[in-house]
């Protein structure tokens, strides 16, 4: 039995008086692609932000690599972050600098690698996401799909052990979305990563998910494989896959 890489226990998140997530407990295993899905406003992104400690839960905690990320010291948290790659919904590239400089940030801030190795690493990472020609372009000069790929190159800059993606295919056409999914899976194989992906796009879920966590109105209704989800006892989950199928 594999040891869980991420353990979420009794996690409750509130915004002012409103409960966004209620008593979520789930394990995420290494080298698996876990997709957090559910209808809009169900708390998917809030769950991701709580896992990453971008928000503090009202109750409960998250353990990653056996350490409680919710309560750990700032120094330990920063060390932990070096094992993560995060792909934000809109890419979150710094617009004022070019792609080369964007990807060099984690290298410059977290390693003491010689300039030559940093330079080559940036080129390799951009080649992995098929974007080597965009080296000196600014994010505003790239299309939506290219921006996502550049952001992905930055997220995998330090060969993270876990890659978190928030709506990677949001705003992309089906072909670009499909190729981005393929790219993420390919990178997962190459870098031996664990993936946690927030999405509500069914086509994407079918392509990439090993496990799914289904949320609805802040509650976790289902955790299991896609096949299990389709024949789940939970009506909302079955319905989600039935309506989304075409």
């Amino acid at each position: 039995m594999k040891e869980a890489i991420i353990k979420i226990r009794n996690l409750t998140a509130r915004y002012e008086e409103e409960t966004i997530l209620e008593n979520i407990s789930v394990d995420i295993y290494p080298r698996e692609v876990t997709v957090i899905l559910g209808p809009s406003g169900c708390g998917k992104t809030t769950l991701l932000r709580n896992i990453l400690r971008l928000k503090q839960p009202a109750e409960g905690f998250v353990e990653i690599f056996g350490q409680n990320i919710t309560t750990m010291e700032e120094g330990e948290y920063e060390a932990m972050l070096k094992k993560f790659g995060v792909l934000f919904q809109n890419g979150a590239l710094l617009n004022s600098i070019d792609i080369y400089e964007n990807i060099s940030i984690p290298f410059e801030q977290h390693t003491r690698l010689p300039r030559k190795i940093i330079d080559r690493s940036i080129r390799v990472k951009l080649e992995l996401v098929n974007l080597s020609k965009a080296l000196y372009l600014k994010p505003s000069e790239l299309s939506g799909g290219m921006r996502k790929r550049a952001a992905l190159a930055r997220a995998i800059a330090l060969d993270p052990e876990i890659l978190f993606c928030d709506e990677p295919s949001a705003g992309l056409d089906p072909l670009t979305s499909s190729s981005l999914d393929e790219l993420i899976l390919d990178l997962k194989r190459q870098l031996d990563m664990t993936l946690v992906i927030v999405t509500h796009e069914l086509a994407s879920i079918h392509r990439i998910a090993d496990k799914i966590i289904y949320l609805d109105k802040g509650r976790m209704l289902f955790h299991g494989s896609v096949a299990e989800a389709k024949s789940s006892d939970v009506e909302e989950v079955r319905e989600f896959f039935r309506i989304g199928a075409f």
Partner: protein
Amino acid sequence: MSRKREPSSFRTKDGILYLSGKITKYTIPELWAEKERYQEYSTLERIDLSEVKVLDSAGVLFIEELVERIKKSNPALGDKPAEELLINYSDQIGYSLKIFSQRSLPEPVEKEKIGFFESLGGSYFEIRDAVYEFLLLSADVFYWSIIGLVKKRGARKGSLIHQSVLIGVDAVPIVFTLSFVIGLIVALQSAAQLRLFGANIFIADLMSIAMVREMGPLITAIIISGRSGSSIASEIATMKVTEELDALKMMAINPIRYVVVPKFHAITICMPLLVMISMLIGILGGIIISVVYLNLSFSAFYNQMLNALMFKDLVISLVKSTCFAWAIVIIGSFYGFRVEGGAEGVGRATTLSVVTSIFAVVFIDVIFSFFYLPK
């Protein structure tokens, strides 16, 4: 927890370089130093990776750097493929070597370098375009401001009052305070000199002429440049970056009419009023110093001030302050509309708007001073 002290080593024996342990981004700085210290590359023919436990992408690139170094120092290796120099590696290490190799990379495209004359020419065209855009924007703003007086369509309801409060009413406390303090300082500095010559009464001439002709309009314009000019530039720049201006255009709403004109009307009304407040409060500062420090009576100050001032001075000052106001709005809008990039672009637009507005205010003041020199 920390991965910075992972064991790794770099040693050579019988023409073979043995790497061992973890070759990762955290161990490379030390290995790189050893690589630089080592001088006998010409004696090396192979790199043994049998003891390498972990190899990340940076590690692969480090090994490739070593391979290049060995081949360069050892011409006997000729055109031998790099893979042949690497021996005894596991499948996993081989997989990493394949994935992260830079050999499959396309030739790096160098950043285009711009020569001096090219950059000079570029600057000329940039300035020419900027001047053209500025004139076009000014014409648009004046056109839509006049149209806006008669046609209410395309404007936000209540925007004139809202902008007047933001630009005018909210600025009263700062204009009041600064004008009063500056009035006190100017009066105090002048009073000490005038008293030496027994010319105490002329403090009224000095304060009234200074505050009405120059200080009042200038103090107010500089405050409004910093307060409202920056706010106009950053608001419009943010709207452009977040595509709000495009959204307005797509709704067939003219952004200048909708966003700039209410500010233009509001500042045209508020600026002269703020300037009058500044003049009065500055002179009040002068009166306080005259009464307390020079023992002048209020009526003596008042009568002397009426003798010194002409109605024309007030009118010119108010006309001048209106020109300042227009310059502040148009410059703020100009930089707002021209913004490029994200957050940094907005910041740059705001800074440029304030600096240029203050420069424009001083420049306009110089022009007025030349045309209306006191006879």
